[in-house]
């Protein structure tokens, strides 16, 4: 799993490290399928991705994905964005599956079990879990508590829950207690590694 919505919240430096390690044949979960040249796009361009599970692959700057997809080199599982979030959250929360109204009666629900509950139709969808989640947060401490920055939060908190090992890159690692416990967004139990990438804070305003 890789956090981010477009490039906001995309852990570019962790992905660069992944590319440098040479691992491949990956199944990727992300909202998109890469933008321009960095992050997920670089991973795809390097030929490391076998399958991608996402909601919105096709964009004006998704050329690396487009080329590999058209060449039949990447498998695509298209998931409505809210179902993607709900399925990731379900994995993190230990649920067996969920019934969601989204997608009912559409080609994305073809062949899936459905059920009428209180007069409304739902589709059975299964959790999406991961071996690793790479996410980007704003600040973290050594217990793994995280706060995010603006709309870079997006999938980070739920992906952190849904992976066996969550690695968070943060712009700053702070001492325990520096993050107000009332404002912790991701409690440290969901995070196994915190990596300081000081240059990774985008934008100049706090």
């Amino acid at each position, binding site marked *: 799993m890789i956090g981010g*919505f*477009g*490039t*906001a*919240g995309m852990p570019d430096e962790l992905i660069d490290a992944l590319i440098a390690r040479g691992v491949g044949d990956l199944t990727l979960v992300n*909202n998109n399928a890469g933008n321009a040249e960095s992050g997920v796009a670089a991973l795809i361009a390097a030929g490391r991705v076998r399958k991608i599970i996402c*909601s*919105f*692959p*096709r*964009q004006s700057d998704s050329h690396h994905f*487009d080329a590999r*997809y*058209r060449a039949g080199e990447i498998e*695509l599982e*298209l*998931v*409505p*964005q*809210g*179902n*993607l*979030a*709900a399925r*990731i*959250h379900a994995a993190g929360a230990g649920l067996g599956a969920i019934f*969601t*109204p*989204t*997608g*009912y*009666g*559409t*080609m*994305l629900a073809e062949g899936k079990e459905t059920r009428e509950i209180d007069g409304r139709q739902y589709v059975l969808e299964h959790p999406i879990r991961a071996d690793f989640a790479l996410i980007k947060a704003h600040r973290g401490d050594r217990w793994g508590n995280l706060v*995010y*920055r*603006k*709309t*870079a*939060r*997006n*999938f*980070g*908190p*739920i992906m952190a829950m849904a992976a066996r090992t969550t690695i968070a890159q943060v712009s700053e690692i702070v001492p325990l207690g520096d993050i107000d416990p009332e404002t912790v*967004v991701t409690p440290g139990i969901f995070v196994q590694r915190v990596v300081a990438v000081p240059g990774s804070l*985008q*934008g*100049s*305003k706090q």
Partner: protein
Amino acid sequence: MNRWTREQIAARVARDIPEGAYVNLGIGLPTRIADYLPADREILLQSENGLLGMGPAPAGGDEDPELINAGKQPVTLLTGGSYFHHADSFAMMRGGHIDICVLGAFQVSTQGDLANWHTGEKDSIPAVGGAMDLAIGAKQTFVMMELLTKSGESKLVSHCTYPLTGIACVSRVYTDLAVFEVGARGARVIDLADGMSVDKLSVLTKLTLAGPGQGV
């Protein structure tokens, strides 16, 4: 006949959004509605990538790549606005907390079925994003679109031929020629561009349409 411009359609939709509403404006045409919301009404815009109380685009030079809307364009946050993660964002949608969602469309049926995510062409790469969640989640889903395709075919149809986004989810369709209510009882015209009539619309759309004040 006088077509409403895209700006006029956006202004027409904005007029129907009440004080205090929580609203999600889909990417593309509906985004323009934000420019026409009456200044005397407090209306909160939600963007599914995790913000409520979305403000206008920032001044040049003030863009923040970590503060964007669903179309990935830089935006601002109003005082009192908030950020949240994707599960909360789509709970707002799916849980019926959003009052109005406005989407673009390839086709809408008179029953309120929506097709707006995929043309079904074999060589196209499908992308759905939040469209299916938005369509069925909001209390009311409006569509904003031109009534006819470039080749003159009606996009308001008896049955959608493009792949569906949601079933019976649209309640109102704002176009350049008229505003329609759609649903279980079929389509009813509730507003007309100058020079338009229900009869002319029936010819253009090849549909049976009820007029303002009429049942179906």
